[in-house]
């Protein structure tokens, strides 16, 4: 099973389990099933609760808020993550405000799903990693799914068990990745903590004590996993990899625990370098571990994502870059 199938299966399961779940998005009807096919089969199975919409990102997110306020659970698909910018007002000034302003009297059980990320040559407005602009918005939860363990389960928790607005980040390159189950992997030991939205802690099975802590989320967690493997087998550098599912609100105790052992932190993200997720991770790490900490952030260069292959590749972080950075930190 790949991530796409896991997410699609989860949407089917949620719609089967609760009549309150409605699904809205552009071009989501069969036989198309959405630009990335995550909605495949929904419109024919649940025709009354799947609504194909005009090209109105602000409008459909706002409608989702309204439906959530009146007892439904709306799932809104934004075709490309870049278009989330059009819905920013509805998310920040409406969805994220209602619970607090009402003194907890109203809740907004809304999930906005969207694929971020580059690697496919789509150019500056179809390749971005924009979630960093939504981190730290009080009242909004931001999740990023990975290929580990149970991506469908994370989506299901967001839809059925969470009464607050969730921005659910997928990555275009994750869809085709096979889901890696916790038990299957013989090379890694994988631990899961957290309740609805797990934090994964991954080490090379049977390795000596870790020298470095790497943290990454989403598709970058997949690159980090490959880097951790190669660092161990090719360079005898042993790293802990900590992967959060929930990016905001910030809570990452397993990372801080790992840092107590390693004293070295490498953050990896696909968003642009400055003012990013890594900066927040680093701030927490420094507040906890102070001057003993050695740290580095890896991220996309501070520029738009170019379309041409060689240009795009030079802007977005890759496995080689992670390995290089880790080796520099250890030497």
């Amino acid at each position: 099973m790949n991530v796409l199938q896991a997410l699609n299966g989860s949407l089917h399961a949620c719609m089967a389990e609760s009549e309150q779940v409605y699904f809205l998005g552009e071009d989501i009807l069969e036989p198309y099933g959405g630009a990335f096919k995550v909605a495949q089969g929904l419109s024919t199975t649940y025709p009354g609760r799947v609504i194909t919409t005009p090209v109105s990102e602000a409008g459909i997110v706002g409608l989702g808020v309204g439906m959530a306020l009146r007892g439904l659970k709306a799932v809104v698909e934004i075709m490309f993550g870049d278009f989330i910018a059009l819905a920013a007002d509805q998310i920040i000034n409406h969805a994220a405000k209602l619970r607090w302003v009402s003194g907890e009297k109203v809740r907004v059980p809304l999930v906005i799903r969207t694929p971020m990320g580059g690697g496919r040559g789509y150019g500056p407005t179809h390749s971005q990693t924009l979630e960093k602009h939504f981190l730290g918005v009080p009242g909004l939860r931001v999740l990023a799914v990975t290929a580990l363990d149970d991506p469908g389960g994370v989506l299901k928790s967001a839809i059925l068990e969470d009464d607050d607005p969730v921005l659910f980040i997928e990555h275009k390159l994750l869809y085709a990745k096979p889901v890696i189950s916790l038990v299957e992997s013989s090379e890694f030991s994988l631990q899961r903590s957290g309740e609805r939205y797990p934090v994964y802690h991954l080490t090379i099975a049977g390795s000596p004590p870790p020298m470095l802590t790497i943290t990454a989320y989403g598709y970058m967690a997949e690159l980090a996993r490959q880097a951790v493997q190669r660092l161990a087998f090719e360079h005898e550098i042993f790293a802990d990899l900590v992967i959060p599912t929930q990016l905001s609100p910030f809570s990452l105790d397993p990372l801080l625990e790992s840092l107590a052992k390693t004293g070295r932190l490498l953050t990896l993200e696909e968003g642009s370098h400055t003012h990013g997720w890594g900066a927040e991770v680093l701030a927490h790490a420094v507040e906890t571990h102070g001057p003993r900490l050695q740290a580095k952030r890896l991220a996309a260069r501070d520029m738009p994502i170019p379309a041409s292959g060689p240009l795009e590749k030079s802007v977005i972080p890759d496995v080689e870059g992670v390995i290089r950075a880790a080796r520099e930190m250890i030497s």
Partner: protein
Amino acid sequence: MTVRPSPDDVELYRQMLRIRRFEEKVLSSFSSGIFYGTTHTYIGQEADAVGVLACREEGDIVVSNHRCHGHFLAYGGSMHALAAELMGRATGVTGGRGGSQHVQWEDFYANGILGGTIPLAVGMALAEKVQHSRRIVFAFMGDGTLGEGVVYESLNMASLWSVPILFVLENNRYAQTTPVQLHLAGEIADRFEAFSIPVAEADTVDVIEIHALANKSAASVRAGEGPRALVLHTYRYGPHSKGDDTRDPEEILRYKKRDPLPLQGDRLDPDLRQRVEKEVEAEVAEAFQRAQDDPLADPASLTSPLDIAP
């Protein structure tokens, strides 16, 4: 300096054929892996761009969208540079930065965010107005783009401030896979008229008819009479992007029977027509070959998008 197509019969045909053959080559070459990203071809809609932009005068501005190849070629953009852009070459229109949807050259601007281009088109028109130039703006958008709220904010301001802009609404009856009946309430023309923007409307693929309509609207805009809208009902023959076509094949065939190219081609002297066709085929072949021989874009060419120092 751009060369604008002179609107005689042969030239109108040549410009449409350039777009048709270019786009056919794009679609047929995609699977060979020479391009980066995706593409949205203009096959079937050629008469819109060519008929409208034949009214363009030196210095006029064109604001385009994701489906920009036809607009760009009709504007006078280089076919070779467009092919090179799709292939991520250093010689591409933007040197490989923008790709298929983000073409910027001279007074031509395209962007992949639907609707977002419309306010900036109105802003450019306002700038031309207050600076007393005679330039006007041509702003293209599709039926699906009428879903975006910012379009209506822009129509309101364009009319309120009487700016020199011609909105060109290409209704190809689909937004990606969604037929217009599933994404649009009411009439398209009414949307412009609600803001007192006069509309000319045609359901035709006749480039001469479109050109005549556009000429009249553009003349009013240029005369300082405020914004105008052109609603052109058309059809695209290719998929939305590469392979994503969920439309009824019979419907496609029906529209293919009213093809803008033979309609115009049949008006030409057969020998002349044949010569034009040969020339265009050679031009397309040469543009792609040259682009393919060009070097890939070099990461060293990337600059910071802003000066960092305060």
